[in-house]
């Protein structure tokens, strides 16, 4: 347990060790540790952000879903209305067409009746003349008596 030069030797060794530690050991290790701490902090905050983003996205998705549903129901309503309208319109058209056809048929019938009456009238006039000829035993000058004949025909 003698105190001797070892004391000084130890002090020198100690000083050199401390110098080396200050210069070459401490800075890189603490730098790496700080860098990792920062990395972890960044990662954690990124995770927080991501979960927030996810929440927002889910909310947005739900909103969009809701909106889509509403739009779809509006479209369906419109389509139903439109279909009803179309059915209504085609019914209307059909009725109008039918009425038109009936009208046409009536007009044709009327026309044919008029024609037939005219034809009949002429024929009756001719028959009347023939009958009159028979009675008078002479021919009737058609030209001379045409005025009378027309009168007759008009009366029929």
């Amino acid at each position: 347990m003698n105190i001797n030069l070892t004391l000084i030797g130890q002090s020198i060794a100690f000083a050199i060790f401390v110098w080396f530690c200050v210069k070459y050991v401490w800075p890189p290790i603490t730098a790496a540790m700080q860098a990792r701490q920062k990395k972890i902090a960044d990662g954690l905050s990124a995770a927080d952000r991501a979960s927030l983003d996810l929440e927002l996205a889910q909310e947005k998705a739900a909103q969009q879903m809701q909106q889509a549903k509403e739009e779809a129901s509006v479209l369906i309503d419109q389509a139903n209305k439109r279909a009803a309208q179309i059915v209504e319109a085609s019914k209307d058209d059909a009725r109008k067409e039918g009425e038109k056809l009936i009208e046409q048929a009536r007009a044709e019938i009327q026309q044919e009746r008029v024609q037939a009456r005219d034809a009949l009238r002429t024929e009756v006039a001719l028959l009347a003349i023939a009958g009159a000829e028979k009675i008078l035993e002479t021919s009737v000058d058609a030209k001379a008596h045409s005025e009378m004949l027309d009168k007759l025909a008009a009366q029929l």
Partner: protein
Amino acid sequence: MADTPVEYIKHHLQNLTYGKLEAGYERFDGSVMSESAWTFARTAQEASDMGFMAVHVDTLGWSIAMGLLFLGLFRYVATRVTTGVPGALQNLVEVTVEFIENLVKDGFHARNPLIAPLALTIFVWILLMNMLKFIPVDYVPMLASAMGLEYFKIVPTTDPNATFGISIGVFLLIIFYSLKVKGITGFAKELGMQPFNHWALIPVNLVLEVLVLIVKPISLALRLFGNMYAGEVVFILIALLPFWAQWTLNLPWAIFHILVIPLQAFIFTMLTIVYLAAAHEDH
């Protein structure tokens, strides 16, 4: 090797001393030095007669080896350090560094980039030197005596030269930073005007404060040395028991030292930080 228990204990507590013997000194075997020369001491008496001009080769060798182990290990990690997932070794080193960093952060509030690495060096170095105690007390001395070396003590912290070597380094730093932070007048004022702030009491203050200052390195060194030395003595005493009975005491004592060894390293480190923090405090 020694025969009686007392000789055995004395032998195990003697450092391997390489020193200067003066001309005319009578050696252990009766021969007389014709001229002064550096040589290994063969007896405790010779070692103590060498006085200050001697070196404990074992203490210096093992402490420097432990210091290099510490620096080598930490430098190895520092060059391969990754900010990603650390390996087992890097993890161990980082845990140590973080432990010291937190100690310094809590105890030292001034800004000084030297303190934390200093504390790390002190802590790991003393821890490694103390840990040499786990090697059974006879292994290395026997190996050394087989190599022709009379004495060999491997735990440097059981040598007051080692503990005082470190604490004097710390003491010089205390003085240096006291002067640097407070200036010569500030430091002188601190020594002279405390605890009694009156000019007439300056001598009393001076005596008290200088004593307080001087006691710091002494208490640092003696606490570590005393604990380690006493532990070592007990280990040696246990080694005197019959070989089949030794483990009954050796084991609990060694397990107890798992606590003591880091604790002493921690106390030395913590007090260093506290002392240097006080040196940085400007009143």
